[in-house]
């Protein structure tokens, strides 16, 4: 709880301004609303680098909320973690929480 509060504070201070774009998918917090902002998937930055069929439907179904994404699954290398592992894209770490949670 305290950790989340602290992280939320860091996120609130350190979050740089973000572009809001057509295709941003907000993941509703499956653990209920908390202090940490919800995770956002921006399509624009991904479609510059991958065609739709690189993700759909092999990795993600084309429907908001249809994929059981959790932080545990990401860190186990599934869903976002297939790429966000420090090789293809930035890894999950204390300096990167606020790049997704914003």
């Amino acid at each position, binding site marked *: 709880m305290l950790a989340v509060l602290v992280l939320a504070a860091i996120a609130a201070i350190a979050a740089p301004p973000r572009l809001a774009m057509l295709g941003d998918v907000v993941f509703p917090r499956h653990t209920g609303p908390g202090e940490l902002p919800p995770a956002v998937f921006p399509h624009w*930055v991904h479609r*510059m680098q991958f065609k*739709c*069929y690189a993700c759909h439907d092999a990795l993600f179904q084309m429907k908001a909320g249809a994929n059981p994404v959790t932080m545990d699954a990401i860190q186990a290398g599934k869903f976002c973690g297939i790429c966000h592992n420090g090789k*293809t894209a930035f890894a999950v770490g204390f300096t990167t929480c606020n790049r997704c949670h914003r």
Partner: protein
Amino acid sequence: MRPAFITIVVPMLLSGFAVTSGCGQATRHSAVTLFFEDVPPPGKESPSKAVVRQPRRPPPAQAAAPPPPPPVAETTKPLPEPEKPAVSRDWPQLLSQLPRDAAGGVDWVRALEDKRIEPKAGLDAAAPNQPVLPLDVELIPKNQPLFKAIFSHKAHTEWLGCANCHPGIFQMRRGADPITMAKIFAGEYCGRCHGKVAFAPATGCPRCHTALKGAP
């Protein structure tokens, strides 16, 4: 009175003479050697080296590496390789340079055509592209030929595979699906993507209804 005059005025005259003779081209050497060591005779190089100031601390690259710390414990597993950092580009900067459509949104079809972006077909850089189908389907609403919509398979299959649409969203037969504008706005058929990830129906009329091009 007199001794004071001598102790002040005579040294003043002497040093005045020495200083002025230091300015003359010919007499300079003898006058300057009076005050400084190591002055070369006229026309010769100075034997002393120029003083080059060093930074107070040597730059970090040249600093001697500290001795490695003594091992704390024996490890049986080899240490993991340091991961090479993920490549990162200034994506917002690239985004701002992409072509725009009439409504002001990014024209992804042209961005891809002009090779401003080169999205990969899969995680594996060698993954092959899925086939592009050069087939335009004309969707003509009953009694409203002006609102003919052109569905370009080419523009779509540059991005999407057949399985993204067939048979989940559309059947593979022209006119088989009862598409209407109301359903599109409600997020069905074309509205599964348009308005969510692809350009929005509300602002993109002339991109689908090409006869409306140029109309306000």
